């Protein structure tokens, strides 16, 4: 019961992480064109705070980030299998996201902002850890 609850919490944290990244990028791009208002500034900072909190709770505190960034020498064969599988899926997902983004850039003719570039780098690091978080029980990657 406790494991199920913590697994659900990790999944929720991951979902909030991605939603806040999307929100940050969308608001930034919108305000670059239409101008910044106080309300948008507040929402943007709130989303950055939400991203930081969710990142800490669902990736750092659970040990997910450390697990997905562990050196291959320090993991055993089962852990290596989990990491390899997550990287394979992450590569596929990230490729599709980048291709869609490039298509949008070509069609809508907008420039890549620093925020978008940073978000993409963050996404590339978050996707493998998120796949592990969603598919594996917290016990399999949690701290000893």
């Amino acid at each position, binding site marked *: 019961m406790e494991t199920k609850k913590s697994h659900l919490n990790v999944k929720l944290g991951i979902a909030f992480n991605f939603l806040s990244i999307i929100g940050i990028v969308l608001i930034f791009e919108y305000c670059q064109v239409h101008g910044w208002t106080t309300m948008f500034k507040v929402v943007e900072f709130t989303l950055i705070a939400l991203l930081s909190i969710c990142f800490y709770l669902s990736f750092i505190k659970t040990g997910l980030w450390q697990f997905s960034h562990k050196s291959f020498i320090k*993991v*055993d*064969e*089962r*852990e290596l299998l989990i990491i390899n599988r997550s990287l394979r899926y992450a590569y596929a997902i990230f490729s599709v996201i980048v291709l869609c983004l490039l298509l949008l850039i070509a069609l809508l003719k907008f420039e890549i902002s620093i925020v978008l570039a940073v978000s993409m780098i963050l996404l590339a690091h978050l996707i493998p850890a998120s796949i592990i978080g969603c598919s594996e029980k917290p*016990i*399999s990657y*949690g701290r*000893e």
Partner: protein
Amino acid sequence: MESRKMYNRIAILRQEQNISRKELAERIGVNFQTIGYLEREEYNPSLDLAYRISEAFKLPIDLIFSTKPFKSLIQILKEQSKEEM
């Protein structure tokens, strides 16, 4: 190719020899959580890991691992009693 399910006696042997999961994990060089996965038969070990486990228990590999489910003690005793009769 889909691999077959491997059955093992790790949990029974570990309890028999009074070794904790952490101790066994240290002996064979894996994370202690991996022992749990092996005991629940949720993970098939590599040949190297299977040999390390057999060396840790000082038993032949085919006594610890099998592709067919191991018979329970009750089943073995029932079969023995039938043979005797």
